[in-house]
């Protein structure tokens, strides 16, 4: 059985979905960030798989940018969580509900 690009694309779609569901379902901000990372890196798999299929370097370079952006994003997210933590003993996403209208 030969592993084709379709397998990688399916894996990528599955991981993306897992990340998406994780982001919606989990209430711990750290797990939410992990889910985000999962989504972004699932896309990376797609990029590489497509680049391989198309025999084109652009998809692989895209991964570099995505990696960096993902890191920057998570660092910012962590800082926001740390800032919130300084005011509260614990944090879950459900605790953040003073803004409702």
């Amino acid at each position, binding site marked *: 059985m030969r592993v084709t690009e379709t397998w990688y694309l399916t894996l990528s779609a599955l991981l993306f979905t897992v990340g998406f569901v994780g982001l919606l379902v989990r209430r711990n901000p750290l797990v939410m960030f992990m889910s985000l990372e999962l989504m972004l890196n699932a896309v990376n798999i797609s990029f590489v798989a497509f680049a391989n299929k198309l025999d084109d370097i652009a998809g692989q370079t895209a991964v570099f940018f995505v990696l960096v952006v993902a890191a920057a994003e998570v660092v910012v997210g*962590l800082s926001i969580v740390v800032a919130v933590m300084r005011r509260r003993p614990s944090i879950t996403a459900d605790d953040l509900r003073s803004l409702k209208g």
Partner: protein
Amino acid sequence: MAQYLPVLALLVLAGLFAGLSFVASKIFAPRNPTAEKLAPYECGITPGRDLPERFPVRFYLVAMLFVIFDIEIVFLYPWAVNYQELGLFGLVSVLIFSALVFESFVYLISKGALDWGPLQVSRRQDPMRSADRTTASTVRRVGQDGRTVTVLDAGVAAEEAGSGVAA
């Protein structure tokens, strides 16, 4: 391929040893669990709810700094592999990039993000912490306008200041 065989064998052995230890302790160790033994604390008041997880902020700070400087390598490594072909343009690009990364370092230092520990923190200038800020200057006394402060009041103020420090 053959020279990697010992490594593989070692891996298998390590895995086997770890697995066997777990299995062995499961089989041979005496276990007699009771409700008291399974409780998280042996004495004191039984906790009514799960304690809030606290995570130490400092470690996250370290992690964040690490991620920033770690990612730099993602761009530097491909350049380093091809630096001759990329020539002066590549060099200038990487210099600009490094300058930008270094710039964030300058900002971190100026903000005191790398001053750790109680000593450094207390050495920092803080308008909230000065000799001028006493109970007399920050607490408004209601209903004393136009009255002179008596000795008794001063004593009370001193007491309050003392208890404030203790608290």
